[in-house]
């Protein structure tokens, strides 16, 4: 397959090695939806398992120490939950918060426990703009104390780390070319990778 000189090359090709990314967009979507799933789809099993354990472990541990209160979607009222934007990076595990908020706003019962991932206050978008109190934020922050913050930080970091993983699924590892050049006197190999000089089943040197 020939490429025109001006065509943008994928990062893996610039690195001189080829990793079969299959359908990168689908892999990126899967990586967002469930951390590690994109890499498992691409056959990069070790990295997929590593990402899954690290990111989901971090997210669920944060959710556990925050007793399910630290991941919730709140907007439109007096309280905006900006950390949820970071938590959303972890994909499916954070989506129940959006479902809980949607259901409470519609006047329905929360799908899960009324205190699990539900926002503390929901403004119903009717003409009266009623405010529904599901749980008290001040009371819970006093009770959970620093664990509320720890849980928030853990879940936010999990979401942010998954953005790196999504990029890795989309474009391959971000090899550091300058460092490679300096160490190896050539381009395109992972300087610390002992297998870089010999082709593997999934790694073929590009011409």
């Amino acid at each position, binding site marked *: 397959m020939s490429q025109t000189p001006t065509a943008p090359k994928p990062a893996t090709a610039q690195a001189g090695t080829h990793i079969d990314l299959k359908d990168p967009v689908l892999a990126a979507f899967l990586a967002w939806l469930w951390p590690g799933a994109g890499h498992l789809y691409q056959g990069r099993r070790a990295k997929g398992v590593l990402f899954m354990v690290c990111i989901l472990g971090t997210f669920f541990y944060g959710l556990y120490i925050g007793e399910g209160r630290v991941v919730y979607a709140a907007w439109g009222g007096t309280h905006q939950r900006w950390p949820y934007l970071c938590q959303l990076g972890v994909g499916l595990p954070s989506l129940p918060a959006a479902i809980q908020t949607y259901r409470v706003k519609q006047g329905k019962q929360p799908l899960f426990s009324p205190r699990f991932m539900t926002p503390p206050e929901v403004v119903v978008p009717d003409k009266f703009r009623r405010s529904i109190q599901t749980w008290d934020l001040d009371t819970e922050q006093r009770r959970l104390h620093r664990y509320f913050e*720890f849980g928030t930080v853990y879940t936010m*970091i999990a979401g942010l780390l998954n953005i790196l*993983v999504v990029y890795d699924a989309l474009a391959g*590892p*971000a090899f550091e070319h300058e460092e490679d050049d300096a160490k190896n006197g050539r381009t395109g190999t992972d300087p610390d*990778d002992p297998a*870089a000089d010999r082709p593997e089943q999934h790694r073929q040197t590009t011409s």
Partner: protein
Amino acid sequence: MLLALRFPLLAMADIWFALPLIVAISLVYAATRHEAMSAILPRAARVAGWITAFMAVAFALLAFISSRL
């Protein structure tokens, strides 16, 4: 109590919450820079060392500032 006096880091129990985060961050970061597991683990150890050193410097700086207040 005696144990905490002998080993002040044990008394600062909250600092241990940083440990899983350092491990997770360094492993994920290193894995997005390399493909082979044999390269990921040493890189992750180096990144973890840098994070720990940065935290130690920040801690020392804050401790120094607070001692002057």
